C-alpha cells in the first residue's frame, strides 16, 4: 500500500470560477500536491469544494532567467532562488464536486470558492470516500482544453493506491467499466485511458 495521504495546506485561492480555481504558494515544497491529486477548499455555508490539480506552474522573472543560463552555478544561489525569493507558484484546480451537509455531490457547486480561502490536500480516507462514485468522470472528460485523460488516469491511480492492493485493483476494474460506458463512442480515447490505469 502506498504511503498514507494526510491533509496538508497548499496555499490560498487567488482566482476562482464555478469550474476552476487557482492557488498561489511561495515555493515548491513537498506539500505541493502532484498532478491529479484530490484537493478541497471551504465553501459558503460550511460546504467543501473538491477539485483535481491539473497544472502546477512556476512563474519566472528576468533574474531567474539570467541565473538559469549561468554556467557552474553556486549551490547557494540555487537554494536562494528556490527558497528565499518569492517566485510565485500557481496551482490550478478543476472543480469535480462538493460536500454539502456531509454528503458528497459530484456536480459543480452552486458558488465558487472565495479568494484567499485555504486549499488543502485530501487525506487517504477522504480520497477513498470521494472516488466511491464515478459521476465526476464526465466533468473531467468534458474538459477538452486540459490533458483530461492523463488527469483522470493519474487521479484513479492515486485513488487505487489509497485503497491498497486488492481493493485498488477492483476499484480500477470498476472505473474502467464506467469509462467504457461513457466512452463507448470513442474507443481510441477509451483505449488510451485504460492503458494508463491498467493494474
Amino acid at each position, binding site marked *: 500500500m502506498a504511503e498514507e495521504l494526510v491533509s496538508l495546506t497548499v496555499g490560498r485561492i487567488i482566482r476562482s470560477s464555478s469550474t476552476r480555481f487557482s492557488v498561489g504558494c511561495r515555493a515548491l515544497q513537498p506539500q505541493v500536491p502532484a498532478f491529479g491529486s484530490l484537493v478541497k477548499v471551504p465553501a459558503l455555508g460550511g460546504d467543501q469544494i473538491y477539485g483535481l490539480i491539473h497544472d502546477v506552474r512556476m512563474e519566472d522573472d528576468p*533574474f531567474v532567467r*539570467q*541565473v538559469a543560463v*549561468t554556467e557552474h*552555478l*553556486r*549551490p*547557494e*544561489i540555487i*537554494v*536562494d532562488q*528556490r*527558497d*528565499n*525569493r518569492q517566485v510565485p507558484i500557481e496551482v490550478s484546480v478543476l472543480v469535480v464536486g462538493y460536500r454539502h451537509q456531509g454528503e458528497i455531490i459530484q456536480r459543480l457547486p452552486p458558488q465558487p470558492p472565495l479568494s484567499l480561502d485555504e486549499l488543502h490536500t485530501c487525506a487517504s480516507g477522504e480520497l477513498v470516500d470521494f472516488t466511491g462514485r464515478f459521476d465526476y468522470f464526465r466533468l473531467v472528460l468534458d474538459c477538452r482544453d486540459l490533458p483530461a485523460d492523463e488527469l483522470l488516469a493519474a487521479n484513479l491511480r492515486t485513488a487505487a493506491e489509497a485503497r491498497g492492493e486488492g481493493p485498488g485493483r477492483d476499484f480500477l476494474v470498476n472505473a474502467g467499466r464506467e469509462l467504457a460506458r461513457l466512452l463507448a463512442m470513442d474507443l481510441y480515447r477509451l483505449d488510451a485511458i485504460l492503458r494508463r490505469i491498467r493494474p
Partner: protein
Amino acid sequence: MALDLGKITSQIDEMGRVLAERAGRQSKTLPAARELLHHFANQQEELRRIAESEPGEKQLGCAIPGDEALDAQFPAPSLPEQVTIVASDGSQIYPDQHGMAFYYAINIGTVVYRHGSGEAPEVASEPTLYYTEDQVYPNGSPVNADRISAQRDLAEMQELARLALREPSAGPPRIALGDGSLLIWLRRKEIPDDQQDQILEGYLGYLDRLRGEDLPVAAFVSRPRSAEVVALLYLAYLEPEARQNVTQLSDTQFRGLADRALFGFLKPGERSAYFVRSMASNRQYRDRGHAVTFFYLNTGTDLARVEVPQWVARQPARLDLVHATVYDQCIYNNGYPYVLTRADELAVILGDEREALETRIVQSLMRHGLPWPELSRKAQQKQVARWRRRR
C-alpha cells in the same frame, strides 16, 4: 503628451554629436594617460608628495598611490572553500509635504551568504518609520532628503556591522560588503554640522568595531566616473611650477577621461594597484585610521571600483580575500555582486508597497480619532490631471 519630442529632436541630435566627440577625444588622450601610468609606475613616493600638495589635494582631488606599482595587474586569487559574505543595501520613502501624513521610512535589506555551505542565504529586510516631531522637524525645519540619505547610509553600515560581527570569528573568513562608496555622502550645507558629526561619528564607530575584529569591509561602485588617478598623472606630468595654475581637470587635455577607461587594460578577474582616495573627502576617515582606498576590478563584464579601508588594503591576505570574493560574486551575476543584487531587491520599496503602507497609516490615524487625512490640494489636483496618463 507633456514632453514634446518634436521640440527636443534637435537637442537630442546635438547630444549624440557631443557625446561622440567626447568619446573621440578620449580615444586620443587615453594612450597618453596610459603612457604616464607606466612612466610613473614605480615613483609612488614622488606621486604621493604631489597628491598631498595643495593643487593635488584641493584643486584636482588626486588619488594617493599605495605601495604597489601603479600599473600592476593582480589576477584573482583563489577563493577559500568557505567564506561568509554579509551584504546590505537600503532604500527610503522621502517625506512628502503634500501627502496624507508627513513621515519618512528607511528599509534595509541584508543577506548573509555562506559560500561553500550549500545553504540558502539568510535574508531579511528591516523597515523603520520616522514620524515624531524630532524626526521629521529636526531643529524645527522639515527634514530634507540629504539628511535621510545620510541616515540610510548609516543604517546600512549598522546592519552590515551587526550581522558580520555576529558571525563567529573562529568560523570561515568573513567579509562585509556594501553598495556604493565607503565615503558617506554628506552635503555640508543641507545638514546642520552637529547632525553631520553625529552621523559620521556613528558610521566611523561601526568601522572601528569591524577593524577591532580585523573583519574586512568593502564597498562596490558600479560604473565609477571618478578620475582621481587620471588627475594625479596629469599633475605629475606638469612641470612643478605649472602645477599651481591648474584649477580643475576639465580645463585640461584629460577632460572627460575617467579612471575606468585608464584601467581598461585589466583582464577579467584582475585588479589594479590600490590607491587612497583623494584627501579632501577622506580626511576624517584618515584621522580615525580608516582612510578609504580603492582598486579597479574587471568583473568579467564591467570595470568596477572596490573600496576598502586602508587597514584592509595594507594586509595582503585581507585584500586578496576581498578581491577573490567580490570577483566570484560577480562571475555569476552579470558583473555585479550577487549578494548586492539580493540586498537591493530586499530593500527596495515599490510603488504598490508604498500604497499599502499608506493605507495602513490612514487606518491607524482614523482608529486613533483623527479625521480622514487628505492630500494637499496641489497633490489632489495633480492626481486629477494626471489620471488619464496613468491609465
